[in-house]
């Protein structure tokens, strides 16, 4: 399975890095299935990548790096279990399995796409199991599906490596001790569990996208989320997975215009649309156009993002279409709030305020900045600046982070200038 040609150190490093990005989930997934032990699987997968760095220089880069890594990791697992000398039954099973599958694996493992897909899907679904705490699902998905190192995940979530390492360890332990099955869920559970996987990926995306509490925008997290959404969409062809992929592509396409030179958030209507990523927008729009109806919540949110992204200027936004899309979403107070803004833009300030009045004060929003912010924003956009100021001040008072506070400060100042001028 290896090419006879030796490779340069740079070629080896590049090949191992590519294999890490593209094959980690598959190698690790195969090892979990093989050993039934997440920690052992992780050690052996890591070891196989270390050996690749040592050996691909002299042996040449294998035609199928994933197969080479899987076979190497499996041999390592057998060695480790053999040396531990305790689990003899398990070892017998593993050796039998290895003898059964190795010749085929050496020849063709890299070509067996169905097996690859099953291993990766098993991993994705197991990491998103609802019995795991949400933060553990997110961390475990990054570690085992995306193949990020524990230290990288710790950095992205702004916690110490020791904390992240503990979080991952507890999650792996719970999988083993609570009997969380390593599998793609059966048909009766698949809809629910797919929704759970989508939620993990979208949380990963928003975590990287929203710079709250002065934390930097972490593009890497958003990009990992896009990669995972693409993987899930490709493996499942699930309409909501494709909807999520469209949504994150269309939102992430605006990243270069979202933050100004001073690090401040730039609202959508003031963004320089020349900075938007036209390629990502085209991919997102294509997915939105292809979405089967009736659409699920991610596909509808993607369609809303698409209306913004396809408008050549903020004034050219088709707000009536956006109102209709909000009507298509499952209703909740936040959806109603956003719908009221869209109504205001489509039909005028009074219609927007009426939609907001119809919402009342839902308990979920009572203490947040969202109600005064929305009413203030509707009034400001309608030119009723004097009425907008106290509402924007209230919103500033309740705003959760420094970035939002500065945003309201700026809006209040604009209203004062406009009102006196």
């Amino acid at each position, binding site marked *: 399975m290896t090419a006879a040609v030796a490779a340069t150190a740079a070629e080896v490093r590049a090949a191992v890095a590519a294999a890490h990005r593209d094959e980690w989930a598959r190698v690790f997934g195969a090892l979990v299935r093989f050993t039934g032990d997440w920690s052992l699987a992780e050690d052996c997968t890591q070891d196989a990548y270390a050996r690749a760095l040592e050996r691909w220089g002299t042996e040449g880069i294998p035609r199928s790096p994933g197969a080479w890594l899987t076979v190497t990791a499996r041999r390592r697992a057998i060695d480790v279990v053999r040396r531990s000398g305790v689990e003899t039954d398990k070892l017998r099973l593993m050796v039998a399995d290895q003898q059964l599958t190795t010749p085929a694996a050496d020849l063709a493992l890299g070509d067996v796409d169905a097996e690859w897909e099953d291993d990766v899907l098993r991993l994705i679904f197991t990491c998103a*199991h609802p*019995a795991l705490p949400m933060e553990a699902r997110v961390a475990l998905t990054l570690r085992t599906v995306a193949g990020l190192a524990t230290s990288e995940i710790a950095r992205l979530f702004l916690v110490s490596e020791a904390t992240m390492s503990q979080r991952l360890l507890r999650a792996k332990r719970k999988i083993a*001790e*609570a*009997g*969380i*099955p390593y599998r793609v*869920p059966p048909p009766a*559970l698949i809809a629910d569990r797919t929704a759970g996987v989508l939620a993990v990926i979208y949380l990963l995306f928003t975590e990287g996208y929203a710079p709250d509490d002065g934390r930097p925008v972490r593009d890497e997290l958003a990009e990992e989320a896009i990669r995972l959404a693409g993987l899930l969409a490709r493996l499942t062809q699930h309409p909501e997975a494709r909807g999520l992929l469209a949504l994150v592509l269309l939102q992430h396409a605006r990243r270069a215009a979202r933050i100004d030179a001073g690090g401040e958030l730039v609202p959508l209507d003031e963004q320089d649309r020349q900075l938007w990523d036209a390629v990502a927008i085209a991919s997102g729009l294509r997915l939105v156009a292809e979405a089967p109806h009736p659409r699920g919540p991610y596909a509808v949110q993607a369609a809303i993002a698409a209306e913004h992204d396809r408008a050549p200027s903020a004034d050219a936004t088709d707000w009536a279409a956006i109102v209709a899309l909000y009507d298509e979403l499952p209703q909740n107070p936040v959806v109603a709030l956003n719908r009221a803004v869209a109504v205001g833009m489509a039909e005028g300030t009074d219609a927007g305020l009426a939609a907001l009045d119809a919402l009342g004060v839902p308990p979920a929003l009572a203490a947040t900045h969202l109600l005064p912010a929305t009413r203030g924003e509707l009034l400001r956009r309608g030119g009723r600046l004097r009425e907008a100021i106290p509402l924007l001040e209230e919103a500033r008072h309740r705003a959760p982070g420094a970035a939002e506070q500065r945003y309201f400060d700026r809006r209040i100042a604009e209203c004062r200038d406009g009102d006196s001028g």
Partner: protein
Amino acid sequence: MQYMMFVATDPDADPYDPQYDNVVAWVDEVNASGARLQGDRLRPVEDATLVRIRGGELLVTDGPFAETREWIAGYDLLECENLDEAIAIASKHPMARFGRLELRPIWPFDPAE
């Protein structure tokens, strides 16, 4: 795997409605599947007795839980292939709606550990 399923009350749950209490059917179904090894109701907390040794002295008192609104009303010991199977069984129990169920994996005691 074996799971202890604690059947507990929960003040945030739907109020109890005997019309939807299908516990007899649940017991029959889970017994028939072979997944229920054992299970019973527990007498109310008013009948509980608390035993402690503090400062070397044995203290026996009335159950302390009379003022708490959440208490264990029963238990079932389940034998399941995995957690998903245990969740499926628990979700059909009437107290999933009128209370809450807690699934705890049995941790076999090994004196050598």
